[in-house]
């Protein structure tokens, strides 16, 4: 992605997309930890329709765009699917995230939406997310620096 396409139209579209995303999270109830916990405790299975409905829409969009469309109008970038490489961190990270989600009932996007409905106690969770993101970044930087000094391999 080029860094030059950051004009006001680009940011407006990002904002509008975020706005629709946020309306959706608020309607779906995911902005409320109680609703998520009811799902995880098998008391209300409605959340399946949130993730399922959203994934079907993005699935169709990705399939159509990668097959039939050329380049994104605002950046000139080609359309790609979201394919991340698999390693054990995917499973370790998913496990840690799962324990955190099950304890708090909130995930990052839903936490931002929760602020929007005036749920100020959710700032505890957002503060925690920043602390957690900082801790893993600090630790991984430290570890890669140590490894680099030892083997003298260049960082990516």
């Amino acid at each position, binding site marked *: 992605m080029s860094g030059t396409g950051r004009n006001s139209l680009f940011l407006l579209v*990002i*904002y509008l*997309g*975020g*706005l*629709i*995303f*946020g*309306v*959706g999270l608020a*309607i779906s109830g995911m902005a409320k930890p*109680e609703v998520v916990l009811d799902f995880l*405790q*098998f*008391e209300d299975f*409605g*959340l399946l329709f*949130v*993730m*399922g*409905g*959203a*994934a079907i*829409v*993005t699935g169709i969009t990705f399939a159509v765009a990668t097959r039939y*469309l050329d380049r994104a109008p*605002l950046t000139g970038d080609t359309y790609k699917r*979201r394919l*991340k490489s698999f390693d054990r961190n*995917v499973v370790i*990270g*998913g*496990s840690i*995230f*799962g*324990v955190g*989600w*099950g*304890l*708090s009932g909130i*995930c*990052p996007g839903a936490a*931002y*939406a929760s602020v*929007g*409905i*005036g*749920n100020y*106690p*959710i700032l505890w*969770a957002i503060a*925690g*997310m*920043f602390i*957690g*993101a900082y*801790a893993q*970044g*600090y630790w991984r930087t430290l570890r890669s620096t140590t490894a680099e000094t030892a083997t003298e391999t260049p*960082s990516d």
Partner: protein
Amino acid sequence: MNAFVSLLALGDPFPRGVLPYLVGGLLVGLGASVIYLSTGIIAGASTFLESTLSYVSSVERFNRFKYVNSRGWRFVFTAGIVSGATVYMLVSGSGVWTTDVQWWRLLVGGVLVGVGTRLGKGCTSGHGVCGVGSLSNTSLVNVATFLVFAIGTAQLVQALGVAP
């Protein structure tokens, strides 16, 4: 198991109905699609945590090109999510809502979410919505993992008598 039995006794797997969940989910997908079709960007919510840390931290990982280069629009994306939820609150007349979940659950859970989503390369939106929408095996494995651990944790905490 208790929860499952009580669910069968209640007989209603969707006590709040299905429609708000479905409509909400479709809109989440639509928001991601608007951004994707216009810019080619596959939006995820948790990268915002690291890209925003690059404003205030000199730790090398947060100052990688991909974070510094995207931190501006990721901030705008998050501002959009916050204001979208506010728009819904105002239009629906639902009023301000606050959670009863205890602060320590939010804080400790939040820390684990922060570590886990960044280590695991994504969260509910990145892996759960966009990764699953891409039929990515990595994302499917990640989602299955976090669902199993989240269900186990929530049911354990409930069984220990913590509510809410």
